[in-house]
Each structure stands twice: as structure tokens, then as C-alpha cells.
């Protein structure tokens, strides 16, 4: 009998990451975008207590030094106390500036005019008020707001348009959530933040995975293949649950608009970004 050497397909594993290489690349990206391109030295970011903003803070510190990183905790009345504590862990570990601004007066000032707003609308208002604060603080501090959204949430449309995605640069936007976890481990982000269930923290006891109907490792494995052209039948053959394939495909397909700038009616042959094409850094 001859020994058999057989290919092992691992389709349902989430994509891996060379964390040391990713860290080096992202730190260089942040330095180039802030210092080289814009001549700036300070970064502003919202620190939610979750893993994405924590990892972003760690990267910013590597790129700019702790004295140049300004974190903001922006709780609303319903935000969990644990989120504030977890954000504090990051601040203390890194020695960065931190200020806590209660967004409840601003949010409630508007929502009292809209008492029937449902949870989604209320969550969007909170996210957009946070964006407003970060941009204003960036103007005050002569600093650049740094985005913290990851690739998984961008692909699933699981964020508020013109809020979480508003900052002009984003180091994590091409990393799946599971890659964010691995990079966070590598960079020494407190395990408490990596191990806890990810949450938008817009409502009590909310978790991302319950909202999405799929775990992050499975969603990432699915999305990674979907983006490379795998069709649904292939994904099901490769061991994915048909219902989850449908959920992820539907979320991806109905949120393409969210990953673009607003649609503008074209009337001329110099329409911006249609005919008149200039790169963002020109």
C-alpha cells in the first residue's frame, strides 16, 4: 500500500493574518496619511470599549506616540458601564489622552422632539452625534479623526452611514473581524476586550452576532470566499449552512450603496467622479 497525501480543504476557516506584517503596514499607513501627506501629528478617535477602537488606538500610539492620541469616551444613557471600564483599560495601558463626553443631552435634545423613534433611529442618532463630536474635537485639537470600522461590518452594512464610516482614513477597513482579533492579541490589547462578545452597545444586552444571525468566524470565512467569486452553491458544497449563506449574501447585496458616496445625477461630461477623475491624494 502506498501512503496517500490528500489536499485538505479548510473552506470554513476564517481568513488568517500575519499579524506582525499587518501591524508594520498599518503603522506605516497611519504615519504617511497623517504626517507625510497632511503634515499633521495628532489623531482623534472614539473609544467605545470594543476591540476595533481599542486596536486602532494601539496602532495610533505606535504610529504617533501616546502624547499625540486623543481618545473620547462618548457614552449615552443606555451605554453599558462595562464599555466605559474597558475603554479605560486601553487608556491606562497606552497612556493616551482621554476625555469622556456624555452625548445624552445632545441626543435627547433632538429625540424629545421624536418620542416615537424606534431603536434603529435612536441608534443612528447616537452614532451621528458621536461623529459630530469627533469631528469638532479634531478641529479643536488640530487632529485627524481616525475611523475604526472593520471589513466585516463594512461588508454587512452593519454600521451607521455617514457616522462610523465618516473619518477620512481607516486602518482596519480591509481586515475582517477575526483578523482584528488576531492582530489585537499580537499587539497586546487586554484579553478582556478580545474575549467579550462584540456589541454596537446601542441597546442594553445587544450583541453583533445576535443581530447578524451568524458568528464572526463563520461570516468572515463566507465573505472571504464570496468576495473572490464563489457562488452560493459552491459555498454550500464547502460546508456552509444554506440559511447563513442567504443571510450574508442578502446583507452584502443590499448594502453596496453604503460603501459609496451619495449618488449624484449626471448631467454633463465633467460630472465629478464619473468623468472628472482625480485620486483622493492628488
Amino acid at each position, binding site marked *: 500500500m502506498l501512503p496517500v497525501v490528500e489536499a485538505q480543504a479548510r473552506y470554513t476557516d476564517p*481568513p*488568517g*493574518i*500575519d499579524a*506582525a*506584517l*499587518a501591524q*508594520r*503596514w498599518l503603522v*506605516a*499607513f497611519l504615519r*504617511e*496619511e497623517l504626517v*507625510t*501627506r497632511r503634515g499633521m501629528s495628532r489623531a482623534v478617535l472614539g473609544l467605545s470599549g470594543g476591540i476595533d477602537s481599542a486596536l486602532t488606538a494601539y496602532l495610533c500610539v505606535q504610529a504617533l506616540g501616546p502624547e499625540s492620541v486623543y481618545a473620547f469616551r462618548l457614552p449615552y444613557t443606555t451605554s453599558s458601564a462595562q464599555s466605559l471600564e474597558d475603554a479605560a483599560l486601553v487608556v491606562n495601558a497606552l497612556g493616551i489622552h482621554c476625555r469622556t463626553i456624555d452625548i445624552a443631552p445632545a441626543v435627547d435634545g433632538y429625540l424629545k422632539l421624536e418620542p416615537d423613534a424606534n431603536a434603529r433611529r435612536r441608534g443612528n442618532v447616537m452614532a451621528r452625534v458621536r461623529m459630530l463630536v469627533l469631528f469638532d474635537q479634531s478641529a479643536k485639537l488640530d487632529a485627524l479623526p481616525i475611523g475604526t470600522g472593520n471589513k466585516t461590518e463594512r461588508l454587512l452594512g452593519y454600521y451607521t452611514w455617514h457616522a462610523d464610516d465618516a473619518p477620512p*482614513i481607516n486602518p482596519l477597513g480591509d481586515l475582517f473581524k477575526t*483578523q482584528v482579533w488576531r492582530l489585537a492579541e499580537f499587539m497586546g490589547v487586554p484579553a478582556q476586550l478580545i474575549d467579550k462578545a462584540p456589541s454596537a452597545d446601542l441597546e442594553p444586552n445587544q450583541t453583533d452576532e445576535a443581530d447578524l444571525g451568524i458568528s464572526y468566524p463563520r461570516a468572515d470565512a463566507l465573505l472571504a470566499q464570496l468576495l473572490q467569486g464563489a457562488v452560493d452553491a459552491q459555498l454550500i458544497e464547502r460546508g456552509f449552512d444554506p440559511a447563513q449563506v442567504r443571510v450574508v449574501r442578502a446583507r452584502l447585496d443590499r448594502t453596496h450603496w453604503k460603501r459609496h458616496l451619495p449618488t449624484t445625477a449626471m448631467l454633463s461630461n465633467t460630472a465629478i467622479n464619473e468623468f*472628472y*477623475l*482625480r*485620486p*483622493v*491624494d*492628488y
Partner: protein
Amino acid sequence: MKVAIVQFKPRKGCYTENLAAATQAFAQMGAQGLPDLVVLPEAALTGYFLEGAVYELAQSAQHCARDLAAAWRQANGAAPVELVCGFYENDAGTYYNSALYLTIEPDAYRIVHVHRKLFLPTYGVFDEDRFLSRGRRVAAFETPFGRAAILLCEDLWHSIVPTMAALKGARLLIVPSAAPGRGIDASCAGELTSVTRWRELLSLTAGEHGVFIIYAGLVGFEGGKGFTGSSSVVDPHGVALVRADALDACIVRAQLDLREIDAARANLPLLGDLNAVLCDLFLDDELPLPHCRCDASSR
């Protein structure tokens, strides 16, 4: 033969400022020992991703040659040099992604060759074919170091292009490049997947044809896309004599012993073997070449 590669980080759209940075690099070479050949990357004087701005920034080869010669002389006076630089070319309203080979002598300079990129990547992050016209041939041309050819970036990814250059007698392949990095799998072992691909291509190509390859990579980020530098010189055995880091601007220097080309070809005579079989391969009427189509239609 002494080579210096400027692993260049351009400022987007700032031709004059980039020329000044190149002048500084030339001056550094003057202080540290003048090379015989200097190579700068693809789109070195403007940055790579220009979209429609390419029409504002493209220069004629003559204009670019004049500026580069002036920069070299400002840095190093009358010292002679051979110089290769990637640039966006405006040839009377037709635009190319080009690289020129320039001989600078004490009292004159002349353009020896202009290579226009054959393969314009237009997929994923790339959009060259939307804005540029493609070159039509790869040429081998005489230099003080023997016959050479220039291939721009994706030109080298099609194995037939370096093969044709070698068949035309090129012993030196000069490859200005702007390669946006991607691929960060767990299996990367400290190197982006795209960088590994380049490293393997350079080694396999040099080793197959017994040529030196001088690879000049752009560095810096443009709109979130980071170029992967890794400028290198690969000998005719396929061994890298020197290789720069992926991220930082630098000057890469190497001394080439051109006698190694004959030694490599004697030890592994693949190019000679190909010469012997080439006609049979290309006369194969299953190939989609013009003479074959005539044959096919008459059948």
C-alpha cells in the same frame, strides 16, 4: 558595473518637488561613489495612481530627459552616467506609461531608448488602460554594459516578454515598477503575498534566461495603497545580490560582474535551447497568430 537604484517615494502630482528629491539622491551618490547606471521606479516623478490627472502631468520624453539630465548635472557636475526613469509620457496627445534610458555625457545627453508599457493592468485596483495607450514592442538596445531591455512592471508578469527580450539579445533587464502591496495571510512569513510573487518572478526569470535583472520599486502610500519597494538586483543564476525593504525610501547599490552572464548560460543553457526550438514553437498553427488565422480560414 556599478548600479544604484533609487527606491523613490514621490509626492503625488508634484513633478518639480520630486525632481528636487531625485537631485538630492543623485548628490548622495556623488558623495558615496558614483554608479555607472542609475534606475528610478515607474511613475517616479509624479506618483502612480493619477487617474485623469495623468493628462496634466505627463511630459514628453525629451522634456523628461532634459529635466533628469539637469538634475544629474546639478548634483554631480560633468560626471557621466546612464539613467533609467519611469514617467508618464505625452507623445503629441497620446499618453503612455513609459520609461526612458538616458546617456548623460559631460557635454551632451541623449535618449537611447523609450519603452512604453505593453501590459496595462486594468483590473481590481488598476485602471491604466482607461487613461493610457499601450506600447507595441519590447526592444533590446545597446548600452555600455551590453544589450539591455526595459520592462515596466506587469510586462515582467507575462513570461513571454522577458523571453522575447532575452531572445533579442538583452543581457540586462531593467524593470521600473510600482507594485501596490496586498495579501496578508497567516502563511506570509513576514512578506506580503504580492511581494513574494515578485521575488519569485525576478529570480525565475533571471535564472531561466541568464540575465541580470535590476528591479526598482516605488514606495509610499497613495490613497491607502502602499507600494512595496523591494528594489533588488538579481544575478543570472537567479540569486538576489541585494534587496531593499518594502516600505522605506533608500538607495540600493550593487556591483555587477557581467561575466557571470556567460557563466550562467554555460551552466544552464536554457536560452540557447529555446533559440533552437523557437521556430517550431511559433510555427505551430494552433497558436492564435496572424499566419495561423489565415491557415485556419483556408481549411
